[in-house]
């Protein structure tokens, strides 16, 4: 730097400042960055499958090769998934039907069983209780025995 001082109180401070700023060196880019910048065209071609537009070699560019393999695979996978889904849906519908039939049988069996149980209980419990009660009521009170006690 030509001058190591700026006369900040002088009238031409701005010119001195501009002159001093112009002497600040532009910092050289680091070597690692320089390498990266020089590699941009090469990496661009490798990364995005870039090739000369309109060239017949475009057909053999990586992206087209990948597309040629990936497209049938994707179609096959789509068809397979679709048919698998249909099979699943059919199985689920069959399962629902079977379950409905089974539940119907269960409900009918339950109804018959409960009818039998209620009939059996009525005959076995209601009759003995009613007869015993009738006998007790018909017997006269044994008052003398109560007084003795």
């Amino acid at each position, binding site marked *: 730097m030509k001058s190591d001082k700026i006369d900040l109180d002088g009238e031409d401070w701005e010119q001195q400042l501009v002159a001093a700023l112009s002497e600040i060196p532009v910092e050289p880019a680091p070597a690692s960055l320089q390498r990266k*910048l*020089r590699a941009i065209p090469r990496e661009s071609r490798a990364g995005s499958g870039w090739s000369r537009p309109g060239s017949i070699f475009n057909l053999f560019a990586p992206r087209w090769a990948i597309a040629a393999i990936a497209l049938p695979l994707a179609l096959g996978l789509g068809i397979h998934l679709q048919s698998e889904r249909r099979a699943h849906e059919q199985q689920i519908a069959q399962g629902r039907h079977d379950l409905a039939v089974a539940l119907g049988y269960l409900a009918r069996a339950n109804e018959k069983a409960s009818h039998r149980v209620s009939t059996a209980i009525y005959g076995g419990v209601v009759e003995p209780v009613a007869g015993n009660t009738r006998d007790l009521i018909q017997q006269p009170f044994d008052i003398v025995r109560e007084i003795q006690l």
Partner: protein
Amino acid sequence: MEQIFRQWVSDHQNDAWTLARYLLKDRAEAEDATQEAFIKLWENRESIDALRVKAWLMRVTRNICIDRLRKRKPETPLDEVEPESTAGPLDALQQSALGHQLQSAVRELSEPFRSLVILRDIQQMSYEEVAGVTGLSLPQVKTYLHRARKQLKEYLVTLR
């Protein structure tokens, strides 16, 4: 085209890097920003006017840097981002104390003053090119540059 691009890299890499370094105050981020700008240059190589490559590149570099500054977490003050020496590798040998003071002062400026000083006063671009890079009008560039220099002067006065 590749050869032309290599020439552009050779001609402008230091300018773009310097701008990114001043704006971002972080070496790794400046490197990423510069690389991003040159990738865009490569992608747009067909449509760019060869005579305006530098202005185009500096505008893109500046925009990338400003985007990155906006994306930084608000709780990280910009002044705390500079972990390294504010001087470049050549500075220690080539620069005077005044040079270091000026570099620090430039880093203290806010936008767009900082960009204006870097582009016009350090990199010696024309007023028209600076206007093109920053998107300001020519009178705005001149007015803001004067204000920026006044701020630099005030900073230097505090160091007396």
